[in-house]
């Protein structure tokens, strides 16, 4: 109801401005002391090293498990970033400030989602070349990059919403992955399978249904998150 009132006050050009303002705020804070991104990166690199020994990644096996290792790494280090990004808002009373601001709640959601997406993409931009280098697998495949982008959008659409809920619960830090993983499972399966299709060179026919599934997933969950974000942050 308050969102409706705010919508009436703000013209639509203001909507985009407030989305960008929220995202810019996060990026500026991160630029000043890059603790969130750094934590995600270090965690991701450690995960890749652990996978190396856990799965004994010899050359023959590598190509078959690469997409699984990559997506597991992204999913786990992603929750780290999402948790942190919302916890910072909560700790310093930032969230209350944001909610008091005369902007549409959807703008706050989109702003947070955009900054979260940028952090995740930055992580992926570092991890993918490092993985290529360490294991001698060429991952610079436009198809794979498309899958990474689509998967990340779905991941963040759900994760931003759920981190808003998790941060308000007593068990905040442990709760997010538990809430998120059942919901992102279809997106993870589709991403892993689609990446597999491109990496093993079987090609498009195999990857297309998975990419369609990813697009459907992204659209559905962006729409739902947009509709219900109001209920997550309301007092």
């Amino acid at each position, binding site marked *: 109801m308050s969102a409706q009132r705010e919508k009436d006050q703000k013209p639509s050009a203001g909507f985009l401005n407030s989305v960008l303002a929220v995202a810019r705020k996060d990026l500026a804070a991160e630029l000043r002391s890059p603790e969130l991104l750094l934590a995600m990166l270090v965690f991701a690199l450690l995960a890749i090293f652990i996978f190396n020994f856990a799965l004994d990644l010899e050359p023959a096996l590598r190509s078959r498990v690469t997409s699984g290792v990559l997506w597991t790494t992204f999913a786990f280090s992603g929750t780290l970033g999402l948790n942190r990004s919302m916890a910072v808002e909560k700790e310093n009373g930032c969230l209350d400030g944001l909610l008091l601001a005369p902007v549409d709640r959807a703008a706050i959601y989109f702003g947070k989602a955009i900054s979260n997406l940028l952090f995740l993409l930055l992580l992926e931009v570092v991890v993918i070349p490092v993985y290529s280098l360490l294991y001698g697998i060429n991952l610079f495949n436009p198809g794979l990059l498309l899958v990474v982008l689509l998967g990340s959008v779905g991941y963040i659409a*759900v994760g931003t*919403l*759920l981190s808003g*809920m*998790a941060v*308000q*619960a*007593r*068990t*905040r830090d442990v*709760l997010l992955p*538990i*809430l998120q*993983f*059942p*919901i992102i*499972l*279809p997106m993870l*399966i*589709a991403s892993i*399978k689609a990446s597999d299709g491109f990496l093993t060179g079987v090609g498009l026919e195999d990857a297309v*249904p*998975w990419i369609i*599934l990813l697009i*459907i*997933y992204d659209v*559905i*969950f962006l729409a*739902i998150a947009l509709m*219900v974000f109001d*209920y*997550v942050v*309301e007092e």
Partner: protein
Amino acid sequence: MESKPISLMILDIVSILLLAVSTYLALVFAPLEAAMGAVQRVFYFHVATAWVGMLGFIAAGITGIVYLATKDLKWDIIEVAAVEISLVFFLITIVLGSIWARPVWNTWWTWDPRLTTAAIIELYYLAYFMLRQGIEEPGRRANFGAVYALLGAPTIPLTFMAIRLFRTIHPVVVGSESAEAQGGFNMTADMRTAFFFALFAFTVIFIDLLWNRIRLGNLQQKLEQLKLNILE
């Protein structure tokens, strides 16, 4: 304290009778299946409990939406009741399925779409309760519960679709049969009687349990209110 309504007590008794008759139909009345033998009798309750789990899942999604639209806490109570019943019945489905699968598929578990999806629903429900557990304030707890119940509605079919793109060996007894399925069979007339009676009986049991659980939820709410009154 208000006593249990008479109609609910009647429904309790009807449920118990229906369960007894359904057990008789499944274990004695229905003919022995030729290839699988006695273990096939698990099928009647396996499908019926899965059906109840599905009813609860759908009810939870719908009441979640209605709660968010009306903000009436009674819908939240119904949602929790539906999720709880669904959680228990899916667990029964999985256990019964495993008992059947051991001799027929020669394994307790396989990563088939239906099995995996049922297991994911269980995990999703556990996450649902962990989320609710962590929040004190009733209004916010109801909000979050409804949002999470709503998120499950598209997730579960999408998960099923995603896993289905792999091959499946789960038999489809009602409807069309896929070529790779193992352990399928055709139902005789008596089997069909037992099967549809089990579905009917468990639907009534579902309604009965839901009603009881909603009543319990209302009492819990009243108790919380009374406690608050004393503190003031």
